[in-house]
């Protein structure tokens, strides 16, 4: 599989070239074009190792996610077929696409809506983010992607990696992905109730440990608030 990203950073689109027999998995609805002769198959994103019970759990999670919002939970498998082909993918919002090679066993946590595509060896699993996830405005579910393979994820605005060594504070709504070795806590931005209400920063996430957190330069909640006021 070869890939090239064009029209970044604002309106990025990724072209994925598949050899005969190769497959790429993509978020439902992200396909822009594909060459003739490719086959598309829709599958529930239940994770590679999921058995019958795993599939049932995945279906239950799908229903919950439908109400909570975030990724569509269904993924499309594009097959190169006999001649190979090219499929182009783009996210819904204005922003960038990041492509990362995950080593065997390397895990990256993606926030709701950040997953775009991956090679078939990447295992995708839903992780319940709970109250912390909701307060972080990153969705109640995270997608945990485990290597080896290529992972593509997208942002609202530009994506930039920040190396965390000890502790790092990020405004909620700006997190795209983070190494699963990192942990985070929800805090008040300015300390105490006053800091939370008056600073305009509300809640922040404090990451702890060693690893990388990928941030986006814009915030979907801020966009939604701004448009809502226009009405």
């Amino acid at each position, binding site marked *: 599989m070869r890939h090239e990203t*064009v*029209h970044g950073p*604002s*309106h*990025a*689109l990724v072209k994925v070239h598949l050899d005969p027999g190769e497959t790429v998995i993509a*978020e*439902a*609805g*992200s*396909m*822009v*074009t*594909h*060459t*003739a*002769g*490719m086959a*598309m*198959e*829709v599958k*529930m994103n239940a994770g590679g190792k999921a058995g019958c019970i795993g599939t049932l759990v995945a279906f239950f999670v799908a229903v919950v996610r439908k109400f909570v*919002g975030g990724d*569509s939970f*269904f993924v*499309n498998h594009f097959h190169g077929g006999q001649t190979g082909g090219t499929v*182009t993918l*783009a996210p*819904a*919002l*204005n922003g960038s696409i990041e492509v990362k090679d995950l080593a065997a066993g390397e895990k990256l946590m993606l926030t709701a*809506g950040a997953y775009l595509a991956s090679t078939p060896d990447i295992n995708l699993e839903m992780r319940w983010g709970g109250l912390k996830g909701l307060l972080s405005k990153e969705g109640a579910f995270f997608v945990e992607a485990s290597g080896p393979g290529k992972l593509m994820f997208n942002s609202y605005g530009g994506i930039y990696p920040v190396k965390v060594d000890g502790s790092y504070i990020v405004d909620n709504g700006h997190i795209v992905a983070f190494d699963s070795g990192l942990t985070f806590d929800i805090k008040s931005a300015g300390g105490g109730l006053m800091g939370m209400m008056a600073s305009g920063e509300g809640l922040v996430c404090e990451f702890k440990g060693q690893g990388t957190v990928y941030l986006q330069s814009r915030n*979907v*909640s801020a*966009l*939604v608030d701004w*448009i*809502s006021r226009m*009405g």
Partner: protein
Amino acid sequence: MQVNLLHRPGSTVAQCLIQQGEVPVRAEAGAMIGMSPNVNMETSSGGLMKGVKAMFSGESFFTNKFTSTGGTAELLVATSLPGDMAILAVDSGAGAGGEWSIQRGAFVACEDTVEIDAKSGGLKGMFSGAGLIKLKASGKGQCLVGAFGALEPIDVEGSFVVDTGHLVAWQNTLDYKLTKAGGGFMAALMSGEGYVATFTGTGRIWIQTRNAQAYGQMIGPKMAPV
């Protein structure tokens, strides 16, 4: 008219320079951003039926005609969403390759010598979200189209598949058929791809890298009910 595309590609503006005595520039209502004092603007619907037809095709009932009252007049026009714009060369004298189909909502402006006609996309067009009606540009002159996101040209030879929400314009040498993205019930319901256009023949397609409907579906549900 001479067109310069400024501020490309994220938020493109078309600077149209019109000389006195040149054919008027016809623009979609609301597309004008600014104009020099020597521009004369005239609003018309081109007749009731034409106006009604335009409304069905996702364009406005009225269009505005701009001319120069003396010297070089400057008119700035743009599309409403963040994105790029392109100039299509329309020339019916050159055959089907000189005529373009334009997705509803993508038309911004053209020289008055270009005829914009609403064509029914059929029943399938209505259900596909691709719009009931597409526009056909014929005649001779320049036509400006606007996109959501970046514009990517695709030169088709044989066969090619495009999601209908990403279509901007295509040469009329191409035939297309609207089909479901994948086979079967699951694919139709869950793939999120809905309808795709399968093009055959030889010609150019302009696609946009973002999909307004998908954007609305992402942002809309997050907004508080009014």
